[in-house]
C-alpha cells in the first residue's frame, strides 16, 4: 500500500510541482496517472521512489516512511536505462548483488524467461530493440519482488504495436505477485486498459483534478461501449483539468 499524505513539492526555482496531494493506492491496485506535461505526475513518482524528498508531507509504503530509495519500491523509467557495460543478465541481476551467484543466476534466468527474453541473457544492451530493452528494464525492476512498482511513461517511446504488446505483458507480470502499480502515462487508452483507477492531474500547481474508477474486468476490449464512454469522460476531465495558457499544450485525444 502506498500512501501520500498532504505531499507538496516546491523546486528551488519556485515551481510548485505538487500542492497538497493526498492519495492512497491499495495493495495490488493499479493506478494510472494522466495529465499534461508539467502537471507534476513524474515528480510524484520520483518522490514515491525516494529519489527526491517532498517539501512537506509524508509518503509511506506499508507504513514505512519513504525518505530514500527503498527495496520495497521499484521504478521503471521512460527510457530503459540499462547499464551498457553489463550484459542483459548482468542488468537484470543488478539489484541482486547481495545474493549468492547461484541464487542470483536462477532468479535472473526466471525473470528473463518471464519477459520472454531467456535467450538474450548474454547479449549487450546495444544489441536489443527498444521494446526488448524496456522488457529487460521491467525484469530488472521486478526481479527484486517490489511491493510497489512505479512506472514513468514506460512505453511512450515505443511504436504502437510494441506498446500494446507490452501493456498486455505488464498485466501478465503483475498477475504473478500482484504488486501495487502506479503508472504515469500520457496515453489515455493505456490508462483505461490497465488501471483500476485513473487519476487526472492538473498543473500550476500540480494537483489532483479528478479520479475515475474502472470496474470492467481485465483484459478490456478497446472497442467496447463502456471503454468508449470511459474514454470520453476522461477526455472531458482532462479538458477541464487543462489550464490553457499560451504556449501550453491542450488535450486533443490524439496527442495525449
Amino acid at each position, binding site marked *: 500500500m502506498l500512501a501520500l499524505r498532504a505531499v507538496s513539492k516546491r523546486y528551488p526555482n519556485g515551481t510548485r510541482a505538487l500542492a497538497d496531494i493526498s492519495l492512497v493506492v491499495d495493495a495490488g491496485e493499479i493506478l494510472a496517472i494522466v495529465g499534461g506535461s508539467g502537471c507534476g505526475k513524474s515528480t510524484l513518482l520520483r518522490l514515491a*521512489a525516494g*529519489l527526491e524528498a517532498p517539501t512537506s508531507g509524508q509518503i509511506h509504503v506499508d507504513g514505512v516512511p519513504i525518505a*530514500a*530509495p*527503498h*527495496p520495497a519500491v*521499484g*521504478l521503471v*523509467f521512460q*527510457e530503459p*536505462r540499462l*547499464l*551498457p*557495460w*553489463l*550484459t542483459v543478465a548482468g542488468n537484470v541481476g*543488478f*539489484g541482486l*548483488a547481495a545474493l549468492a551467484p547461484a541464487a542470483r543466476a536462477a532468479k535472473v534466468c526466471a525473470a528473463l524467461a518471464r519477459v520472454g527474453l531467456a535467450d538474450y541473457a548474454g547479449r*549487450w*544492451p*546495444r544489441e536489443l530493440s527498444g521494446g526488448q530493452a524496456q522488457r529487460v528494464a521491467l525484469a530488472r525492476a521486478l526481479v527484486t519482488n517490489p511491493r510497489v512498482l512505479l512506472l514513468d511513461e514506460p512505453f511512450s517511446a515505443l511504436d504502437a504495436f510494441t506498446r500494446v504488446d507490452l501493456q498486455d505483458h505488464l498485466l501478465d507480470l503483475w498477475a504473478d505477485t500482484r504488486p501495487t502499480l502506479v503508472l504515469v502515462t500520457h496515453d489515455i487508452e493505456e490508462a483505461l486498459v490497465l488501471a483500476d483507477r485513473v487519476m487526472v492531474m492538473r498543473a500550476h500547481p500540480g494537483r489532483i483534478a479528478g479520479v475515475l474508477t474502472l470496474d470492467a474486468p481485465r483484459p478490456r476490449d478497446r472497442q467496447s461501449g463502456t471503454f468508449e464512454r470511459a474514454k470520453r469522460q476522461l477526455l472531458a476531465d482532462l479538458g477541464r483539468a487543462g489550464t490553457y495558457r499560451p504556449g501550453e499544450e491542450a488535450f486533443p485525444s490524439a496527442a495525449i
Partner: protein
Amino acid sequence: MTPLSVVQPSAPEALDAPATPPPRPVRWRLLLGFVLPIGAAVLWEAAVRSGIAEGRLMPPPSRILATLVDLARGGELWWHVQATLGRVGAGFALGVAAGTALGALAGASGLWRALLDPTLQGLRAIPSIAWVPLFILWLGIFEASKIALIAVGVSFPVYLGTLGAILSIDRKIIEVGRIFRLSGPALVGRIMLPAVLPHYVIALRSGLGLGWMFVVAAEFMGASEGLGYLLVDGQQLGKPAQIISAIAVFAILGKITDALLVALIAPLLRWQDVAGRS
C-alpha cells in the same frame, strides 16, 4: 482497347534469385598505408645510388638500416631502449597516479574542484620544459629529474581526461544506481568507474603520447644513455643516420606501447556501441 495499362508484377523468380553476397572487404587496403613511406624510401635510395642526390645529411634507407643493425649487434641499441623505456614507464606511472587522483578528487565534489582546478589549470599553462632547470636544481641531473619531468607532462592530460569523464557521467545512469540503493564506494565501483572508462582510456593514451614527447626533452638535458642521447650524440658527431635510426625507434616504440595499452583495456570495453566498431 483497354483504357488502363496494367503494370505487370515483376517475375517471381527475380525475387527468389539468391542475392549475390557483397564482395569481401579488401584486406590489401591496409597495405595502402605503406605505399607512401616505402615509395619515398625507394625513390630516395635510387636518387642517392644514381648520384642525383648526395645523401650526406639525409642518408639513404640502406645506410639507416645498416646503422640500426650495427647498434643492435653491439647491444648498444637495447641499452638505450631500456633506459628510455624505463624512464617513460616510471614517469607515466607516476603521472597517471597523480593525474587520476587529482581528477577524481576534483570530479567528486564541487568544493575540491573549486579549490584545485584553477591552480592546476594555471600550472598546465606552463610549458613543461620550463620546469627543466628547476627540476635539475631540485632533483639533480640524474634519473629523478627526468622522471619528474615526464610525470608532470603525463599528469595534466590524465587529470583533465579524468575530471571531464567524471563530470560527463549521465545523471540518469546514476539514478539507476540510487534506485538500487548504491552509495559511496558501491556507486563508484559499479556505476561511475565503468561509465568513466572509455574517456579515461583516451586520457591515458594522450598521457602516454606526451610521456614519449617529454622523455626526449628529459634526455636532452644531459643523459649518458637513452634514445634521446643517441639523438644528441648524432647531432654533435655529425651522424645523421644515427639520428634517423633513433627517430625510427621512437616511432616504433610509441606505436607498440599505445597498441599494448589499447589491447590491455579492450576486454573491458567490449560493450561499447561506437561508430568505430564493425
